[in-house]
């Protein structure tokens, strides 16, 4: 068995909020799993429990063969965590931050220096090594924050929204680094609000919705099972009722499922019957992850989340 992470029937409530409702998930060595879900779905809660930061109410977590609920410290030695909230030392330089987190992970001397050099090169931190962390831009800080989790090449890597605030180049280099680590056998949990990243990683997908895992599989499997292409007409005001269409969102969006959405769009526009003056946009939803997400939840993924860039 080469499952680096086994999560079994995990339950977690905060007071009356049930953040995780019986989540089970396994991640194999070399696998990147894109952890998707809207704000509050439970992604960070899941990651925090795996990292030993919170105790589940019930359920089992095994990291590299170690029970993470009973022996969180020993389990944590097999993982690297880049939490959703930034965590770097502002008064220390980039190099000092990296050397510390590497040392905390048990690296020392030559290996530590080597890994700091490699990781800072891969995430373009080289020119910033002598800069105090407080003097970095938001995206640069995020890179340092993420780099600090990978230094010891853990068998399990937990990256909670690592590309928030990152520019295109940073995002690209981070995806390369993640692919590289997975290529060398790491299991990676990668939560994000940005589906193209999951597609670029060729990651498998786990979708959380209100604390429940509603989908799990490869992108191809999920697309074959759930995705349907559609046309969406967005109106200024309420969408007019049209046979075969569904009014969604705040009531201003008309969605029509169609195998050939472009053709369907032409027909729909012709049938608007005066309402076209209120039409603000026409969107075609293709059969990628976005369509999977929409089919499963009835909502768009990214638009709804309002990415913070």
């Amino acid at each position, binding site marked *: 068995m080469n499952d680096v992470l086994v999560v079994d029937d995990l339950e977690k409530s905060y007071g009356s909020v049930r953040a995780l409702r019986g989540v089970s998930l396994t991640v194999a060595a070399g696998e990147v799993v894109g952890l998707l879900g809207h704000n509050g779905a439970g992604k960070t809660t899941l990651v*925090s429990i795996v*990292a*030993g*930061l*919170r105790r589940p109410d019930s359920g089992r977590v095994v990291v590299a063969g170690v029970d993470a609920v009973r022996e969180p*410290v*020993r389990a*944590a*030695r097999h*993982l690297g*965590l880049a*939490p959703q*909230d*930034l*965590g*770097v*030392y*502002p*008064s*220390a330089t980039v190099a*000092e931050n990296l050397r*510390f*987190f*590497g*040392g*905390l*992970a*048990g*690296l*020392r001397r030559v290996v530590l220096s080597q890994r700091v050099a490699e990781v800072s090169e891969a995430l373009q931190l080289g020119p910033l090594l002598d800069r105090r962390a407080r003097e970095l831009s938001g995206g640069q800080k995020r890179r340092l924050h993420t780099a*600090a989790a990978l230094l010891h090449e853990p068998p399990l890597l937990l990256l909670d929204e690592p590309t928030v605030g990152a520019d295109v180049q940073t995002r690209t280099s981070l995806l390369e680094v993640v692919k590289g680590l997975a290529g060398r056998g790491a299991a990676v949990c990668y939560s994000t609000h940005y589906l193209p990243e999951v597609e670029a990683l060729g990651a498998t997908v786990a979708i959380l919705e209100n604390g429940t895992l509603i989908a799990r599989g490869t992108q191809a499997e999920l697309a074959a099972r759930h995705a349907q292409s559609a046309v969406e007409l967005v109106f200024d005001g309420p969408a007019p009722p049209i046979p075969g269409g569904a009014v969604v969102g705040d009531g201003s969006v008309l969605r029509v499922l169609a195998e050939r959405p472009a053709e369907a769009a032409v027909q729909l526009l012709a049938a608007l019957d005066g309402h076209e003056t209120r039409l603000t946009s026409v969107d075609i939803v293709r059969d990628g992850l976005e369509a999977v997400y929409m089919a499963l939840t009835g909502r768009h993924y990214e638009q709804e989340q309002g990415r913070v860039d």
Partner: protein
Amino acid sequence: MSTNSVRVVALWRHNLLLWRRDIPSLALLVVMPLLMIAFLQPLYRSTLQAQGFADASGAEQAVPGMTVMFALFGAGIAAFRFFDEHSWGTWERLRAGGVSPVALMAGKLGPPLLVLLGQVALLLAVGVALFGLQIHGTVVGLVAVGWALVVCMLAYAVALTSICRSASQLSAATNVGSIGIAGLGGAVVPPDALPGWAAAIAPATPAYWAMEGFQATTLEAGGLTAVLPAVGMLLAFTVAFTVIAAARFRLTDTKSMS
């Protein structure tokens, strides 16, 4: 080296660096008490001489007094080092770093132990060199009192951290606590000159016992047995603070910054 000790060494190095980068705090711990000693010494000279210590320089009250008061402030700053981790978002990273809770505390408390020992040693040494502090009793006893005070202050720091939920609470507790405990303990005004009610509760503070111990070897020519009660009581306070800390400290607690 075991993996835990590699991690503790990393924590020590890094936390020493963070203390070194915090110049204002270090200045508070050393420069402020020296200024206070300089201001207060003449006043204390006449007080002590009136009490019958004919050759007193005033440093016998000023130096240990300000050392005790600013060791209390040092404990407050050591407590802030925990709050810093929360405000920087690094506390969770430390907890997820595969370090046992004991190793984590050892890593966080090693550097303030050095800083406070350095502070106490420096203030006493400067007291001797510049302010005419005389050590009539045993130096070993003086050193023992200094150590006991510092260890007690570290336990006090963890107890403060465990009780305060926000940085503003900690800030208030540090200021009120440092001045209050030092004042009650006779570090600001000699115990004999304290108002009656304060003199009555003075022995309930660690500051009182630190002052007793320091003065037994400076003002008086006490030997080792003369400092034993003081060292014993400081260690008793250490145990009490440790009990509070053990009961209240939770690695999983979050601290707010306002």
